């Protein structure tokens, strides 16, 4: 077993374990911290796939900005394990069973897809994930979506301020 495979399985196990911990944690602050661990594991996967730009952006935008925003809101509301609303146990069971059925269905679908056999994702190699190549494509072929993105951000900012404004 090569180092890459060991790292892949370790990061996968870490991501799935932390994702489950996000669900079972009673305290919302712990959920946020476990979600940050998930994002770090996914960034590790990006590095294994040599998508360096996305790995860094994932860390800065998700684990940095978005999760701090979540943490800030949770601390602003002073939420903790005591104030946490709980669903009925039967509702939880029904949700888990339906999610499990969804997973089972898709896994059996993938197992039957013969065109996926023998296809490999290139690890630790290939230069399409580097900033140079992504930047070239972003500012030549994808200029219009990139500029529309700035309009989207502006409208999101204005919307957040309008919604959060006190009457």
């Amino acid at each position, binding site marked *: 077993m090569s180092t*890459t*495979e060991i790292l892949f399985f370790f990061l996968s196990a870490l*991501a*799935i374990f932390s*994702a489950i911990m*996000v*669900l079972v944690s009673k305290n*919302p602050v712990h*959920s946020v911290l476990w979600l940050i661990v*998930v994002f770090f594991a996914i960034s590790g996967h*990006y590095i294994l*796939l*040599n*998508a360096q*730009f*996305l790995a860094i*952006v*994932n860390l800065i*935008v*998700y684990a940095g900005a*978005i999760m701090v*925003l*979540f943490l800030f*809101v949770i601390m*602003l509301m002073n939420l903790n394990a005591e*104030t946490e*609303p*709980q*669903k009925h146990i039967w*509702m939880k069971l029904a*949700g*888990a069973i*339906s*999610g*499990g059925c969804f*997973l089972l269905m*898709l896994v059996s679908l*993938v197992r039957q897809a013969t065109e*996926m056999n023998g*296809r*490999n*994702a*290139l*690890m630790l190699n*290939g230069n*399409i994930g580097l900033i140079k*190549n*992504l930047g070239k*494509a*972003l500012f030549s072929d*994808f200029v219009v*979506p990139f500029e529309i993105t700035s309009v989207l*951000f502006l409208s*999101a*900012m204005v*919307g*957040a*301020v309008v*919604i*959060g404004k006190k009457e």
Partner: protein
Amino acid sequence: MPIQYYIYLCLTLFSIGIIGVLTRRNAIIVFMCIELMLNAVNLLLVAFSKMHYNTAMGVDPSTSVGVDGQLFVFFIMVVAAAEVSVGLAIIVMLYRNTHSVDINFLNRLKN
């Protein structure tokens, strides 16, 4: 790494996100599970882009097949950031009006 491993990993993460949306009542946790689902899809997009690059590289070593997939992930992250800012503003407003983040309170929207 066979692409099936990535598909199974991302399906598991996505299903955990779905189970979280179905079983939790805290609006912030539900929102975080949506972020988890978005991230599972992002990881799968990158894995598929590297799979197609792997195939195309055998024909032409200087190919740039798969760049679009990674840029799509970039745009998904941008949209997710915008979505989080608006969504959290809505949750803060809900908390200010009801002093709770229980999504069952949103029931009263139907009256």
